[in-house]
């Protein structure tokens, strides 16, 4: 964390500046390809009240929630297991890192062939994106637990299960949470991406459909919703993250 304090006034000015740029771009490009910020917000509000929109929102929400749950559980189990065992960690960690850096989009057709065109494929794809950062951060967090805490646990005669539950996990929580925060974002990216490629429901599907219909209102409103939701949630998680790290 940086010693200098944040410049929130500056941040607000930059945000305002971006909105002004948006408005200016609208004035230059015109109605054919863009909407103004105000129009976009108004249309997003309309959209949220439309009954026909709700099923798509619910579909994406459900897929995202399920993917996040799977990503978290998988990431924690893999991360703690690999973090506690040095050889297993050394064997599998580089594989996770490699998986992290490849364009996973191209794997989506394989998931579609395995799960069929439906919510399961999206969930699997979201989880595939999300579990990696959770696992990687958990591995490091568990590895970096100060040896003195483990010694203390031994002196207090903790068994293996109690050691994980009472010492390793709580000591690693701040780092694990950072992994969860990034996992949250990547799960969302994966879920939406899956919907954009092939899906019959959900926000990503609507977004791609709108290109064909040249529905600029819909594209801008949904993009705005996704960005606002992602940025908002990420800010909240980041705040919690920083609080957890301040403890030590």
């Amino acid at each position, binding site marked *: 964390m940086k010693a200098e304090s944040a410049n929130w006034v500056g941040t607000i000015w930059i945000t305002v500046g971006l909105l002004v740029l948006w408005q200016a771009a609208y004035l230059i490009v015109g109605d054919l390809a863009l909407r103004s910020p105000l129009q976009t917000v108004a249309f997003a509000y309309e959209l949220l009240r439309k009954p026909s929109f709700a099923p798509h929102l619910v579909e994406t929400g459900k897929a995202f929630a399920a993917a996040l749950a799977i990503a978290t559980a998988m990431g924690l189990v893999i991360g703690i297991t690999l973090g506690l065992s040095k050889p297993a960690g050394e064997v599998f960690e580089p594989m996770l890192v490699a998986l992290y850096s490849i364009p996973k989009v191209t794997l989506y057709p394989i998931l579609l062939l395995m799960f069929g065109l439906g919510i399961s494929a999206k969930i699997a794809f979201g989880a595939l994106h999300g579990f990696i950062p959770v696992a990687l951060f958990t591995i490091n967090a568990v590895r970096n637990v*100060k040896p*003195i*805490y483990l*010694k*203390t646990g*031994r*002196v*207090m*005669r*903790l068994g293996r299960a*109690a050691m994980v539950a*009472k*010492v390793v996990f*709580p*000591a690693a*929580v701040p780092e694990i949470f950072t992994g969860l925060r990034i996992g949250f974002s990547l799960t969302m990216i994966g879920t939406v991406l899956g919907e954009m490629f092939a899906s019959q429901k959900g926000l990503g599907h609507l977004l791609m459909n709108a290109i064909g219909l040249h529905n600029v209102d819909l594209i801008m409103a949904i993009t705005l919703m996704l960005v606002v939701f992602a940025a908002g949630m990420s800010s909240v998680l980041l705040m919690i993250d920083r609080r957890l790290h301040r*403890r*030590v």
Partner: protein
Amino acid sequence: MSEQHDLTAHVGLRGVTKVFRGADGAPSVHALGPIDLDLRRGEFFAVVGPSGCGKSTLLEVLAGLSQVSEGNVLIEGKPVGGDIMDGVGVVFQEDACLPWLTVYDNIAFGLMQTDTSRAEIATRVESALTMTGLSGFAGSYPAQLSGGMRQRVCIARTLVLQPRLILLDEPFGALDQQTRLLMGEELLRLWRATGATIFLITHALDEAAMLADRIGIMSARPGRLLEILETGWSRDRDSRLVETAEFGAVTARLWQVLRGESMKSINRDGARA
């Protein structure tokens, strides 16, 4: 091979030796021993020695955190294996407070692992808080405390387990000189109040001279006991002891024995670096 144990002693070490096997062809290091030593029940025993002489290894062996290569250790007549014995408490030099728990929960940490009742835990923690002067800080987190207070939390955490033998590895090593003197005084008070046997590792000669009934002086690596010095202090001593001539004599004797050993140790470290 080893001699007969003195069964009246609280702790007995016979021929205790520790050799660290080098990994992948690196040479083995003979770190410790052989050491023969008996600790009397209720005494305050300190160990001083040059750096790298195996003091901490000796404590880890006693604690059951490390296995001996040769010889054996008996605590209350039972051999120490790879596990922590009943009635043994350990305080480390490093800050071992768990930062995610309050002072209260840190102190209760060990007790929670036993089947002690909630009420009993509360009573014991309260009394340990009072004894260590932490009463007002039960709800604080370690990050809000000074180094000296955090070390008190670690001592209190050990005390609530009501150990009969307390092992301390340089517990005041990270504190400033004045805080150390006062913490030493406090430790003496706790020792009198609990009646436990204390085994203290330190590199500070004055600390050993002020606190201990007997002081074991260790040689450079491999650490052996060169001499055991009886201080002859009364049980109700405190830090004002440092003003006396006898205190000076004890410290002087410690340095007389240790000077040569420390030089060996420094020259060896210098040659290695």
